[in-house]
């Protein structure tokens, strides 16, 4: 008797999720952020959750699962049941770079790209007491002596972008890894390294205070915050780089659920209040659908692969 009730209930649940996916979501959606609470990925995802709950009749809960440079949380999101109720914050380091270095139980092919809602632009800055303070002097200096460029962690996105630029520009740099970007920033302001990759928001405040000077922007075109700072592209170096703020999930979701989620990300990314909050936080708010997001990830992977091979880090941890 009991058994048949349970089976009936189980059947009813399956039927409900299968047949009426239009009713999605019926319970809170969890988003795994693979970093500690309080970082830019976490904060932006919390704004997404807040906007989501305002726009839709549903709940979105952010769950922080830090560790392994983001690999642990990303693995949790990608190995979750593909019912649309467990998603992840799509971060460049753990999704693109970590699988190439090795030691992860997932690959880029396991990722279902739902949508990108912002990009974090990157600026290379000269640190306090550095022997250069603009792009030309930087490249000129690098011809004689490798500048020491700080990054937020060995094998992280920061190191890859700095090395990828050096490769494209035909110069040599010496990467100095720190434990997180705030340590690198401290060393930079203290003049213990020559340069680092920073976000436009932090670079702006620091350059106004005379602590750093912007060298170049890693975009196609100059950006509003730094109208006087060149891009690498205009200096004849074919190099752009930015990190992403997006939503991902495990492969194998049913079609309706996936379509609903994609639509939700688009609506969130185009919400006026959301755009303002995120812009104030220093993010570059832009919507890209799943396909464009995936293409971006694959392009970043090609760049990273080349750099890692050169650094002898490809499949280092396998």
């Amino acid at each position, binding site marked *: 008797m009991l058994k048949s009730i349970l089976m009936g209930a189980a059947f009813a649940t399956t039927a409900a999720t299968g047949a009426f996916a239009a009713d999605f979501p019926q319970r809170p959606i969890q988003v795994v952020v693979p970093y500690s609470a309080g970082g830019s990925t976490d904060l932006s995802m919390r704004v997404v959750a807040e906007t989501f709950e305002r726009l839709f009749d549903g709940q979105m809960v952010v769950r922080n699962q830090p*560790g392994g440079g983001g690999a642990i949380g990303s693995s949790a999101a990608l190995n979750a049941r593909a019912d649309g109720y467990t998603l992840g914050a799509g971060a460049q380091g753990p999704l693109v770079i970590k699988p190439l270095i090795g030691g992860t139980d997932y690959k880029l092919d396991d990722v279902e790209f739902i949508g990108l809602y912002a990009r974090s632009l990157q600026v290379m800055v000269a640190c306090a007491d550095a022997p250069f303070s603009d792009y030309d002097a930087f490249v000129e200096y690098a011809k004689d002596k490798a500048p020491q460029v700080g990054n937020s962690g*060995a094998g992280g996105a920061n190191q890859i972008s700095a090395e990828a630029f050096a490769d494209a520009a035909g110069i040599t740099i010496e990467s100095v890894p720190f434990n997180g970007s705030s340590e690198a920033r401290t060393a930079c302001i203290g003049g213990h390294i020559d340069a680092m990759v920073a976000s436009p*928001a932090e670079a702006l405040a620091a350059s106004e205070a005379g602590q750093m000077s912007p060298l170049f922007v890693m975009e196609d075109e100059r950006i509003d915050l730094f109208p006087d700072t060149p891009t690498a592209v205009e200096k004849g170096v074919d190099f752009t780089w930015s990190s992403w703020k997006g939503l991902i999930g495990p492969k194998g979701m049913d079609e309706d659920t996936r379509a609903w989620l994609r639509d939700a990300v688009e609506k969130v990314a185009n919400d006026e209040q959301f755009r303002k909050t995120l812009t104030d936080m220093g993010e570059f708010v832009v919507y890209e659908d799943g396909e464009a997001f995936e293409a971006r990830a694959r392009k970043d992977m090609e760049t990273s692969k080349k750099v890692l091979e050169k650094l002898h880090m490809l499949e280092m941890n396998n």
Partner: protein
Amino acid sequence: MESIAFLTPLFEPQILLTIAAGTLGGLIIGALPGLTATMGVALLIPLTFGMTPVMGLNMLIGIYIGGIYGGCVSSILLRTPGTPASAATVLDGYPMAQRGEAGRALGMATIASTVGGLIAAVVLATLAPQLAGIALEFGASEYFALALFGLTIIASLSGDLLKGAISGLLGILISTVGADPISGVLRYTFNVQGFASGFAFTPALIGLFALSEVFTQMERIAAKEEPIKIVSGRWPSRSEMKESRGALLRGSIIGTLIGIVPGTGSGTASWISYNECRRASKTPEKFGTGYAPGIAATESANNAVCAAALIPLLALGIPGDVVTAVLMGGLLIQGLAPGPMLFQTNPDVVVGIFGGTFIATIFMFIFGMALIPVFSRILMIPRRLLAMSIVIFCFIGSFAINLNPVDLYTMVGFGVLGWGMQKFGFSQAALCIALILGPLLESNLRRGLLQTHDDVIAFVSTPITLLFLALTVLSAGWPLVAGALVRRRAERNQSKPESQ
């Protein structure tokens, strides 16, 4: 005069209420093992979106100050450091509670936290821009020398020097598990993805101190020993206050100085303070046996770090620890970029934060003192039930921090290790210090040598590095010299009566 005008908005009931709520919330979060001040601040940042900068930031600072203080509660009562900052408080707090003086131990911790917080807040408000420069002097070699100096605590803290050294080295070995800080190669992870960042720190501490104690308690329960049911009043006695005066002052100053140096944090500060106060004490042998100045030393230092860590954040835009890094996120969301410009562009916010730090510290004192009788009641719970609930808390706390199941194995593993160490007279404190300082030591040594291209002389030849290296030699050598002096005096005293 102008700055006084900026202080008045702080006394609006709405803002006072927000700071009070933040402090109380932080206190409770800190008291629960596994929920840290960092987590409290990070989780409540979204709540501040709609607030004015002064209100929002002061709520977060309240949580921070309350959270670091709250950690002492479970350290003293349950031997479970609520936050890593309070691990050193276990040494004297827990024995005091076991002696039936839980109330007084908590009272001393509250007073010490308040004194440390207020002294650092005064420094913050008066000397922030001047002192912030210290933070910039610290490069790889300076951090390395500071960490090395910190490790000498092991020599004076563990009774048996050999066993202490073994515990310390084991701790350093354990701290090498995970991704190599310079090359990113995974070390000793045995292909377990969950260990990619090494053993998680808080679960390791919870296992090392709390779970191991439960094992010891279980042996006592089996031996049918009677539990303590006395908790004592909350105010330390006059003589305890008199004995602790030096420790309070010393702890506050050490905490303030270490708080200014980014990336070292309240855990390091409380251990160094404990060691220095013990060394300066006339009765160092009483430390570790449930001696009030021991609590005064650690708690004044760790709360001084809170306000002091705001110095480099506000003056230079450099976060001093994880919590201030999160606070920096909070400032950026408010459209305020911390750094030297902030003092000019938004003096109202800067002064508001100075004032808020004082107010939050005072709220912390009031709530802390008021809640002591409530907290102490935990000890009235029959020992069997208490041991069971601590085990549950160990698991929940270890899991809550990263939601990583591997952390539970870490906690249990360290629990067994800690129990074994306790049984055979190895110092758990030495292991804990090595776990805190090991990564700081290794990554800065390697980063520094990378930057100087393996030139050791260039690496060590900066004034601050040399100063700390000299202190290291003195500190490591002192117990040996002191021991020799004591022996000689004893010999002389023995030989004197004979010659007469």
